[in-house]
């Protein structure tokens, strides 16, 4: 099972490789990927450097081109695909149908991974993408229970990659408009969820108000541990309740250390760590824990148990300092 780690820049890429990532995924320095943050991502020159580094230690890198081009701008996305092919990327992570078509026609040898943003959650959708565009792998949205992942893995015509750790999207990815509803920008179009330039914190007595494009999404204690502000993790009121509540989800991160044996038995080929926007220190810390966990599992699958110190290390870098199995666990749903 591959350990696939995020690399927002060369420093993170090195950190991931040093800490034992089998593969990394990267994006270009523009809005062709869904982590288009200032100071992040790779220019064509940096991508070459990244390719060299990865190849020299015999690991793999995948290029993420997972936003959806709008009319008149398609050329930039096509050029990104051309660049991926030239760079020798070991895979291209794509969501948009026109881009899958372009890549399939122009670079049939370049392995296509269906991005989570394509929101394919079932056998019919996966088979269709495989038949039409010869995708090799699909990244599953974080809406499936472990049982559903196992069922799908039994019959899937393509390799499956799942999210193992990181920020928890609670909606079917690629089809969530909460960010654009409030800010006008979403991962699909603008390249990020809840863009930082729309976030504003205000202190008011012992409270901290969190605003997203002026909309109050939370009011917390000054010392309360909060995650990155997104609409689905805000505290709101209903007509029936007086106290504000996390109506959708509270700040927490996904962690599936406990599921490694089940995911491996199901035949999942890759475990993805989320977080191209996070620091090299984060990437190093998380990669180390996951490398240790996977090595422990591979050495003695039947005796595997997630260690407390791993969980503690991951909780430290998690939103709200807590983790959850998310939708993998039916009771969460």
């Amino acid at each position, binding site marked *: 099972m591959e350990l696939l780690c995020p690399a927002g820049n060369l420093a993170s890429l090195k950190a991931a490789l040093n800490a034992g990532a089998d593969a990394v995924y990267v994006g270009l320095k523009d809005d062709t990927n869904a982590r288009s943050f200032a100071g992040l991502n790779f220019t064509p020159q940096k991508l070459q450097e990244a390719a060299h580094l990865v190849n020299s230690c015999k690991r793999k890198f995948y290029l993420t081109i997972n936003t959806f081009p709008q009319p008149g701008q398609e050329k930039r996305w096509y050029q990104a695909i051309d660049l991926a092919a030239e760079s020798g990327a070991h895979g291209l992570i794509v969501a948009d149908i026109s881009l899958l078509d372009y890549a399939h026609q122009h670079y049939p040898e370049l392995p296509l991974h269906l991005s989570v943003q394509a929101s394919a959650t079932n056998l019919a959708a996966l088979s269709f993408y495989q038949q039409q565009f010869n995708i090799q792998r699909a990244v599953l949205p974080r809406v499936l229970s472990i049982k559903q992942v196992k069922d799908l893995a039994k*019959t899937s015509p393509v390799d499956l990659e799942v999210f193992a750790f990181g920020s928890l999207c609670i909606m079917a990815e690629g089809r969530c408009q909460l960010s654009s509803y409030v800010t*006008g920008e979403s991962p699909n179009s603008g390249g990020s969820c809840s863009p930082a330039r729309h976030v504003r914190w205000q202190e008011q007595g012992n409270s901290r108000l969190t605003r997203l494009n002026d909309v109050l999404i939370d009011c917390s204690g000054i010392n309360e541990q909060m995650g990155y502000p997104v609409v689905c993790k805000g505290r709101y009121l209903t007509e029936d309740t007086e106290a504000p509540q996390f*109506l959708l989800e509270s700040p927490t991160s996904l962690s599936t250390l406990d599921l490694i044996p089940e995911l491996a038995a199901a035949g999942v080929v890759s475990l993805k760590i989320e977080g191209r926007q996070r620091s090299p220190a984060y990437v190093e810390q998380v990669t180390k824990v996951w490398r240790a966990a996977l090595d422990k599992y591979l050495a003695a699958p039947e005796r595997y148990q997630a260690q407390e110190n791993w969980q503690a290390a991951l909780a430290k870098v998690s939103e709200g300092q807590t983790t959850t199995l998310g939708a993998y666990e039916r009771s969460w749903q």
Partner: protein
Amino acid sequence: MKISLGPLMYCWPKSDVYAFYEKVADSNIPLVYLGETVCTRRRQVKWSDYLALAKLLQASGKQVVLSTMALIENSSELPELRKQVANGEFMVEANDMAAVAIAQELNQPFVCGPSINNYNRATLDKMATWGMQRFVMPVDLSGEWLRQVLTPSPSYEAEVIGYGHLPLAHSARCFTARLKGLTKDGCDIACAQYPRGILAQTQEHQPLLRLNGIQTQSASCCDLRQQLAQMETMGVSWFRVSPYSQDCISVANALIAGETAPLTADACNGYWFNEAGMRRVV
């Protein structure tokens, strides 16, 4: 410009659903979409009931399209979806790529619903090769996007959700059940108590979202009635009213009669102007 009626996205008692569509049958609305699109646990109104309603509506001279589920997570749902696509009488609205896949395989024409990611002309043209006859613009796109995509005019039709609460997201989690302290598997169909979803407001009492089972909608009603003439010029074929009460039938009838209406005070229309969806642009 022709007016269509979108599928009912809420869980209403069966009698209310029937009363609603009987009223629709008496309306002037030429195109009606119906079917469960949100949750398979809502079994009060079954597929066979929807088929019967579709026949009733067809008999009153309406075009009918059967809408299918927006998020398909279980393999066990696929045979049912296949049966729906292969119904032999009515076109379906695909709201998940699974439905597109099955329609293409069975050589059945289909409509692409708003939750299919059609973000550019090349994608839409590809969909057309698979049998797409019409697409509903994804809710987050703008008038300018539409103008560009419809130039030159394509072989398929365009439809815009012009009135109603916008479907913004779908989750594995049922927010209604969660709020009631129930599990998804033991939800007691809690959403049936909320015929227009649960209104979620900010702590400053600004309406923000509507929780409708696993679906999250805009709290505000999107209102693009002012843009109707502009849409017509662009080549949009259908203006969709997405119903949240029987009043929406009157809204549709008024539009068909050519009546104009001012932008309501609590409406949103931001997406059309390439702004935040919840904005009200005047």
